[in-house]
């Protein structure tokens, strides 16, 4: 097998590799800025300089030539090479900064150059704390600067588009953002203007950077040149906890990270998953952070004389039990939701089973023509396939309306059917409506009893995307009844580790008074005398995997290890989604 020698260590390889990626995959490091594994390689930052040579082969025998000491003869490239764009070859010898003074010097020189015109405003820069330039300068940069002349001045605080702000002075011209709009989002909205040390990325005159994926350039930017108009100055990176999660705004199930401080989700960034969203998410998926904080339903609410008033959990349980007991079984309709997780829908289904009611129904939330064939899907819900695989009856809008008409008690799971214009208020007027919901909406307004439940940021639960991939979320923020210090699965931030007591998440108001659906249902079942105990997502998924064929083999550990599991779904479902 071909071999490459990196810093004196021999590595075997197969196939084609770029040296920089190969070194990274080995868990080693070479500093870089412009390279990105999902985009073309411009080799323009010149930071990943390494020394490269090749064992000399005897042309006739094909063996490596050796010198008098029996060492292989190496022919070095006359110049240092950028590791990002050079192919790994058999018999290649590489010295990185770990073993070569010349390489160390070259990388330091390059950082000195990058920094001469870069403002030293890390204390007020949003990128600080997650800035490749900052990190690599600490590691590989010069101790000080010999630059004693005037820096170049360029435009600052340029609103490139509705969501992205440019500080051109911070730009190091890596062209990641322009390559993103050329190669990934294909809107070609950004380009580099001007020449030499005066250049920076900008849109065409008068044009807006309103690319539906524009905020990915903020993540790509290796400095603080591009920042998010929404997030900038809201938090320092090290104040937030980063929790892996799944995008719930559409059917793609893009992998994301939730960034939380004091139980408020402050931003959403993409998390790499080669099988789903690569390194990207649409801008609208990021705006979904507000759903977790704003307009939340806290404490159960009940309608009395046409007005919703705050109620108590005991009253909510009692009302639910009472309504089910009082209503004829054939007149009770449970509606599941493609917006809710597999575990929540399963819990609802199990409850109806034990009550001897028919399975919940559901209506997919698909808006034809809104998808873009990339990461935005026609499907507006994250778990349509999950409902299908659970065996819920799939109804279109008209049949749902018919079913609702026949019912006297309607139990709704996080689906805003009135807002979706599937039902109207008058459809529900003469019925008792119980809504399990996370956020206020026209639909919850029409409900007689609203029971607040947890969002994807507050529970661990799974979602099956349009391609049939099941992936799960983690708890990112607390509810009234949890203590994150006791929850081993909740992420730890830098402040948790190094901060003082004052840095604890202390604002009680930021915790929503809600419960996971399964906890509430367990309580309700108990009061109905049913034997149903659902503790948490992990265990519910174990139960699902044991009892339902499509979910065979699914468990949280396997999902975590493989970043999701591909389930087999009918092709019809795939295309429909």
């Amino acid at each position, binding site marked *: 097998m071909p071999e490459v020698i990196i810093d004196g260590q021999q590595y075997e390889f197969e196939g084609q590799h770029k040296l920089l990626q190969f070194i990274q995959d080995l868990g080693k490091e070479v500093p870089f800025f412009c390279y990105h594994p999902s985009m073309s390689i*411009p080799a*323009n930052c010149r930071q990943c300089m390494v020394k490269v040579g090749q064992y000399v082969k005897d042309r006739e025998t094909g063996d490596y030539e050796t010198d008098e000491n029996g060492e292989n003869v190496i022919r070095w490239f006359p110049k240092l090479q950028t590791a990002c764009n050079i192919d790994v070859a058999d018999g290649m010898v590489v010295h990185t900064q770990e073993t070569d003074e010349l390489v160390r010097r070259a990388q330091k020189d390059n950082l000195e150059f990058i920094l*001469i015109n870069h403002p030293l405003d890390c204390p007020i820069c949003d990128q600080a704390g997650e800035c490749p330039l900052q990190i690599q300068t600490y590691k590989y940069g010069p101790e000080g600067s010999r630059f004693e002349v005037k820096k170049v001045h360029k435009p600052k605080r340029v609103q490139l588009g509705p969501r992205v702000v440019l500080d051109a002075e911070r730009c190091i011209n890596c062209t990641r953002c322009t390559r993103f709009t050329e190669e990934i989002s294909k809107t070609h909205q950004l380009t580099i203007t001007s020449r030499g040390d005066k250049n920076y990325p900008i849109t065409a005159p008068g044009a807006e950077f309103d690319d539906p994926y524009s905020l990915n350039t903020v993540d790509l930017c290796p400095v603080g040149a591009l920042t998010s108009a929404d997030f900038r100055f809201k938090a320092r990176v090290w104040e937030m906890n980063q929790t892996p999660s799944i995008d719930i705004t559409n059917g793609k199930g893009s992998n994301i990270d939730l960034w939380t401080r004091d139980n408020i989700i402050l931003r959403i960034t993409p998390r790499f998953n080669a099988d789903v969203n690569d390194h990207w998410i649409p801008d609208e998926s990021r705006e979904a952070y507000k759903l977790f904080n704003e307009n939340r339903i806290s404490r159960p609410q009940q309608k009395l004389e046409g007005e919703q008033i705050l109620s108590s959990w005991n009253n909510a349980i009692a009302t639910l039990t009472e309504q089910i007991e009082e209503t004829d079984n054939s007149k009770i309709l449970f509606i599941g939701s493609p917006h809710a997780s597999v575990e929540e829908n399963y819990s609802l289904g199990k409850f109806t089973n034990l009550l001897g009611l028919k399975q919940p129904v559901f209506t997919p939330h698909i808006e034809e023509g809104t998808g873009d064939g990339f990461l935005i899907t026609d499907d507006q819900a994250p778990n349509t396939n999950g409902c299908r695989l659970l065996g819920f009856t799939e109804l279109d809008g008209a049949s749902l309306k018919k079913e609702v008409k026949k019912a006297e008690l309607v139990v709704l799971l996080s689906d805003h059917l009135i807002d979706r214009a599937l039902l109207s208020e008058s459809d529900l007027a003469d019925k008792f409506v119980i809504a399990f919901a996370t956020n206020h909406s026209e639909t919850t307004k029409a409900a007689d009893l609203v029971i607040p439940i947890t969002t994807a940021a507050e529970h661990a639960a799974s979602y099956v995307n349009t391609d049939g991939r099941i992936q799960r979320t983690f708890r990112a923020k607390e509810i009234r009844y949890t203590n994150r210090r006791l929850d081993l699965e909740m992420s730890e931030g830098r402040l948790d580790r190094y901060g003082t007591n004052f840095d604890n998440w202390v604002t009680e108001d930021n915790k929503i008074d809600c419960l996971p659906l399964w906890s509430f249902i367990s309580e309700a079942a108990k009061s109905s005398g049913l034997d149903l105990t659902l503790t948490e997502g992990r265990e519910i998924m174990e139960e699902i995997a044991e009892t339902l064929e499509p979910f065979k083999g699914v468990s949280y550990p396997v999902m975590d290890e493989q970043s999701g599991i591909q389930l087999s779904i009918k092709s019809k479902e795939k295309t429909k989604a």
Partner: protein
Amino acid sequence: MSTADWKNYEPVIIPDIKDLDKIDVYVKNGGYKALESILKDKKKWADPKSVINEVKEANIRGRGGAGFNAGLKWSFMPPADGGPRYLACNGDESEPGTFKDRKIFEYNPHIFIEGALIAAYAMEITTIYVYIRGEYKAYIDMMEKAIADAYEKGYIGKNILGSGYSVNFYVTYGAGAYICGEETSMLESLEGKRGYPRVKPPFPAQKGLWGRPTTINNIETLAHVPSVINRGAEWFKSVGAENHPGAFLYGISGHVNRPGVYELPSGVPVLELINDVAGGMRNGKKLKAVIPGGSSTPVLRADQLDGITMDSESLRTVGSMVGTAGMVIMDEDTDMVDVLWRIAHFYHHESCGQCTPCREGTGWLEKILLKIKNGEGEVKDLDLLLDLTTQMEGRTICALADAAAWPVRYTINRFRDEFEARCKKVIKASNKAISHQS
């Protein structure tokens, strides 16, 4: 003809013929004979390969500055596969001190057109672009006229001279960027993109214009081709210096009596070019320095020039290069600090900004030099400048960083006294203390 009797050389590219830019005059004086020969004389030119071999044998070293054997470059083109292939003729000519291609556009455009057609035939290319710098508006118009005339006479277009070979010829022009003279950024510019040099490999012969095999040649290089075909490789090699044969278009500028473009064999002694060709130093001043081949080539002091001839071998012995043979002659009144600052200003202005060392380094060099020029520099700044040149050289995609670094390094090394004299006298700490007391 050896270098010694350069005075007897008869110019081929810019001979003293009136109205040679008109196609009829050009044809009357033996023009397009070489093209006709390779297209029709199957005994002499069995196939396109034979043309490449002849040109390779002649060893026309690229006149754009790098000096690579043109025929050898042509032979790197992969075999024709039926898809498009391109010849891109580089007339961007923007290195300060260089103005030779302009002479061809102006006085003898057809010899270049003929050379390009021969090159295209040899490499089985059917599309030729000539990229001319935008500032040459008048010559762009002249080239367009010349090409239109050649189309009309049947030298360009479908079925040239009844041979069955067809080719198209287009004029395009730059928008004022030095970097677009770099061959791969010229391709980007031709494609309508921002002029950023490409990373090599892949080389243009594999993946050039629009991802297709492309050869890039300098205008003067191609203008030498017809005479190689007419008179043979042996004749071409007999002209001028052995390792760098053929004639040069010497572009002589600066403090001489008769600046201009002169077609003479390569390897003419530098001092003879100044004194005999260009009419000696202006106002009888003393020679101080010569930049031999465009602003990026290392400057030479007058005392280094004894016996030095204008070819790569000889210039290497004193640490310089022949480049484009665009010679800048400077007399004793020249301020080398000003000269170097002006050169550094040019490279700062023209760096495309793609690679870090060049983007940041060129600006830094200029700013320090400006400080020294204004008498505010210190001697340590000179050492910093030298340090920066090593930080820039060989660390970038194209050679602009090298071109910016060399003049700084060599001008400082060769005229250090002058630079130090311009620097601020650093007052020693003890002196300061004394001045405080008084």
